[in-house]
């Protein structure tokens, strides 16, 4: 029974639509859980800047406030370890997701980022039997997610050696930055057959190609509404085909329930993998319909979904 247990979310960044959707899912779900009397509290805390040091301080404050569980979307997989360890030592359950932490005492709900990279090249190799030059849009240098997805893409290219990465820029998961970086490198690029991405940057890349007056390659899309809409427009206009890989922001609700289950005394393995969200050509219309305009396509978990999921991994 967890009716008197309090769960906190420590979030390091709120500055993009994915994070907004993530907080939104958390909020709806936690409010409902409190109302239903499943837990006593499910408060969300966000730091002002995307900085590990600030988040570490925040976690320490949550410890002081006596929460029973802290769910973390971490700014860094390692830099919070000190604070996480302190939380564990204080008897608090720590569950990390999306941005996971390496501290062994915490649970991890990880996305297989590496797979997310690999699968893009796998898809392309099906579409483009002759291979060709790829442009890679990376995230933020020195950040775990960026490195993971990138290594997946590299592995994919190694598997399919007809592809070559002709150029690579850092889009920092920000559309405007991605657009600028791609625009700057395009003049020097040979013909690009496809763009491999990390999410949140596909639309910016499409705009950069259009602005440069170059033919639009296959751009792997993320889960933002603008990306899906653009894809749909192209599809309707000229039968454009691509795919979308992303993480559903609703994974925060899964993390919530995992924390609740652990508090409830359930035996949960430390390392959990969630599937990433994939939208194929055929599902595009459905995917778009499920995404609110301007938002992010999403999957949320209820307590039962979460139980079923834990069942399946055990």
């Amino acid at each position, binding site marked *: 029974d967890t009716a008197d247990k309090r769960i906190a979310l420590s979030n390091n960044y709120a500055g993009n639509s994915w994070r907004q959707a993530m907080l939104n899912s958390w909020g709806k779900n936690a409010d409902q859980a409190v109302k239903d009397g499943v837990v006593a509290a499910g408060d969300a805390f966000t730091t002002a800047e995307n900085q*590990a040091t600030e988040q570490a301080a925040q976690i320490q404050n949550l410890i002081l406030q006596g929460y029973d569980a802290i769910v973390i979307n971490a700014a860094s997989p*390692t830099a919070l370890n000190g604070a996480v360890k302190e939380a564990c030592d204080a008897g608090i359950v720590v569950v990390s997701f999306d941005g996971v932490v390496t501290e062994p005492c915490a649970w991890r709900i990880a996305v297989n980022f590496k797979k997310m990279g690999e699968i893009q090249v796998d898809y392309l190799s099906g579409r483009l039997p002759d291979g060709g030059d790829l442009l890679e849009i990376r995230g933020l240098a020195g950040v*775990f997610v960026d490195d993971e997805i990138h290594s997946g893409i590299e592995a994919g290219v190694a598997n399919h050696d007809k592809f070559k990465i002709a150029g690579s820029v850092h889009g920092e998961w920000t559309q405007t930055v991605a657009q600028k970086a791609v625009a700057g490198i395009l003049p020097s690029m040979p013909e690009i057959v496809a763009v491999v991405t990390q999410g949140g940057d596909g639309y910016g890349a499409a705009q950069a190609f259009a602005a440069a007056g170059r033919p639009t390659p296959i751009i792997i899309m993320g889960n933002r509404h603008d990306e899906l809409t653009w894809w749909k427009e192209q599809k309707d206009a000229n039968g454009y085909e691509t795919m979308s890989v992303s993480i559903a922001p609703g994974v925060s609700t899964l993390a919530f329930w995992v924390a609740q289950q652990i508090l409830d005394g359930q035996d949960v393995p430390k390392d959990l993998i969630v599937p990433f969200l994939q939208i194929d050509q055929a599902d595009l219309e459905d995917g778009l319909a499920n995404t609110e305009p301007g938002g992010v396509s999403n999957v949320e978990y209820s307590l039962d979904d979460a139980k079923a999921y834990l069942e399946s991994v055990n």
Partner: protein
Amino acid sequence: MNGLRFFASARFWRGALPALSLTFVLVGVFWLQPRAMSYFGLNLLFNLAVPIALATIAQMFVIAVNDLDLSIGSFVSLVACIGATWLRDTPLLGIAALLGCVAVYAALGALIYIRQLPSIVVTLGMSFVWSGCAVLLLPTPGGSAPDWIRTLVSYKPSYVPMPLLAAVALGLVVHFGLMRTSWGVLMRGVGGNEKAITRAGWSVLKLKMVMYALTAVFGILAGLTLVGLATSADANIALRYTLLSIAGVILGGGEFVGGRISPVGAVLGAMTLTLTASFLSFLRISPDWQIGAQGAVLIIVLALRAIVNRLEARR
């Protein structure tokens, strides 16, 4: 007579303001969260303030000579990366790298002085250089702090929590070195009136190099403490220290030009900033406004200063 008393008290208030601000926020925190009023609580509240205070002191040395270091955040991040890799695996290489950093800083001071460059551009450029080095050293977050650093930062003395001891020691040591010794006078003099120092026959070049080197030394201390607390590093771990450290110096009563700085104030300023963030998480505001509330609390703390100042002026 009257005039003397006025100046004495104006100076008193100028000095007391940072302490007042800190007290104000601390009272707020204790009121919201009585649990914080304990050995354990104070430890948690303040241990991450120690590296920030060190970085603030580092920034203060540069501000004391009328310059600004926009690279301190990336520099501290780089030090953390060195600390979690070379310093642990190949200590000699690590120490050499850190010494090299000090030398680079001193050289920057020399370059800025000799060519009369705007420090802000040079250090802006250097922030990219430090970040680049950090990314090369640690392309993905990780590494692990040497055990001796971890032991050092997690030491728990009896009665008074370590972070408080560290803050007091830091404030006093730097205050003594910069405000009380005869060499500190020269260094602050460079900020006050560079020409006066030159005319008295001192080498402003050397003094600036020393100040920049000291910035590096305290930046290194900040980075090592930080990596000790975090246990491992990340190339972007302390980017925010650049702004925090500047804000800390100013909150502590320092001024951008004129060599008017206060080491004790700077430490208090850094602690106030850290505490401000904590205060908020105790308030439980809606996530939309949590970021904004941080601005609001800063404004309130600073408004308090304005009120005290004004009362003082009216007297």
